[in-house]
């Protein structure tokens, strides 16, 4: 018989999944906050373009587009957030199942494999774990697809910000102010891109 196993802390490796969800959620929260900022910045840019009049007609159109972009981005992020909230349940299921299976395995090691019922219990545990992991993998794929879609949307945002910079050059006396606004847009969108890159690398399950 093996020595009894004590302090059954099986969560050190399994808690990685929950930590990953936390990281994904934090990135999503950061992007949502930035999207809200773009929305406000676009609103200010629209007013500024109105004040600049004919010289900033093109800038005004782009500001409207950037505002729409910020709203679309917020919707995308809300859907991503729903996905990660749902995945907390699945990850918890996997963690619990792994923990239970590990403790049961420790009990079986102490008792010996000859104990009736242990093989069936192990099989049931393995099946349940496989089902929960498959569910999590599906969620992970959906999350990745959704991040890719958002990345495409942000590419469009980047194009809009660059165009706004070009339009700002034609803003006459308002040109320096419009240039500052369009530079801010470009910086914020670059920040979102970086966050999405991090999100794209995160996996809810290990490959």
């Amino acid at each position, binding site marked *: 018989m093996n020595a009894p*196993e004590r302090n*059954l802390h099986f969560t050190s490796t399994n808690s990685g999944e929950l930590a990953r969800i936390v990281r994904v959620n934090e990135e999503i929260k950061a992007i949502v906050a930035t999207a809200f900022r773009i929305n406000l910045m676009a609103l200010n840019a629209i007013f500024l373009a109105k004040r600049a009049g004919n010289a900033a007609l093109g800038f005004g159109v782009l500001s409207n587009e950037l505002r729409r972009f910020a709203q679309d981005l917020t919707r995308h992020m809300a859907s991503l957030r729903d996905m990660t909230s749902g995945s907390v349940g699945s990850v918890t299921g996997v963690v619990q199942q792994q923990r*239970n299976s590990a*403790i049961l395995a420790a*009990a079986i*090691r102490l*008792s010996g494999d000859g*104990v009736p019922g242990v093989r069936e219990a192990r099989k*049931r545990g393995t099946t349940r774990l496989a089902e929960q992991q498959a569910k999590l993998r599906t969620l992970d794929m959906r999350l990745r697809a959704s991040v890719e879609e958002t990345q495409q949307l942000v590419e469009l945002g980047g194009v809009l910000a660059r165009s706004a910079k070009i339009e700002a050059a034609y803003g006459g006396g308002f040109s320096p102010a419009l240039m500052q606004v369009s530079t801010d847009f470009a910086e914020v969108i670059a920040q979102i891109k970086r966050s999405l890159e991090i999100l794209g690398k995160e996996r809810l399950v290990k490959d």
Partner: protein
Amino acid sequence: MKQAHCIYQDDAHRWLAIARDPTKPGYIIDTNEYVIVHGDEALLCDPGGIEIFPAVFSALSAECDPTRLAGIFASHQDPDIISSLALWLEFKPDLKCYTSWLWQSFLPHFGGRDSTFVTIPDPGMTIRLGGLELQAIPAHYLHSSGNFHLYDPKAKILFSGDVGAALLPPDHSGLYVEDFSRHIRHAEGFHKRWMGSDRAKRDWCERVSRLDIDMMVPQHGAIYQGADVQRFINWFAALEVGVLRG
């Protein structure tokens, strides 16, 4: 490591006490688990916490076929009583858990589904194990507000949960109470603090005095047998409970 000790046997009717675990970490309270085996079925009383599951499972498996477990009796809702529930269900998903109706929606936080729980009404009930009829004896407020003990009229054993519990020093490793006067000193503080109702205590003393008891087996500490059972009931009846000190 925990070991199962046979404390009663009459043909295929047995009581096993899974007690004393010198390898258990000091920060976890020591617990006793009891298995009633009758013919082809077994009932586990207060299976214990998650941390001690491997030791309890191993000790139980050494003495009886764990697939014969038909149910679990949870005297109340504490973690040292029943937090291992999910693990027992992992091994045998169709296990029934007998517990006070009061904990019906609380215990699923440890595991199990609606069909797992058989709720015991306040006045108690009969629990059938094979051909044996066990009696769930009310012990409410001693210490839990929904609390039951289990009486086996055939073996004349009363599983008394936390009543009779003693927090014994490491050198008191005997399974049975050997010197009541010395032993009870280790039970006094626990009963004063944890048993919250004098009225509930008097009701319980009266109730169990009517039972024919050869052994009273608590969830912590040593087993009372013979005259020590009535000695304990008398001691408990006279004890001032629900006090911090004194």
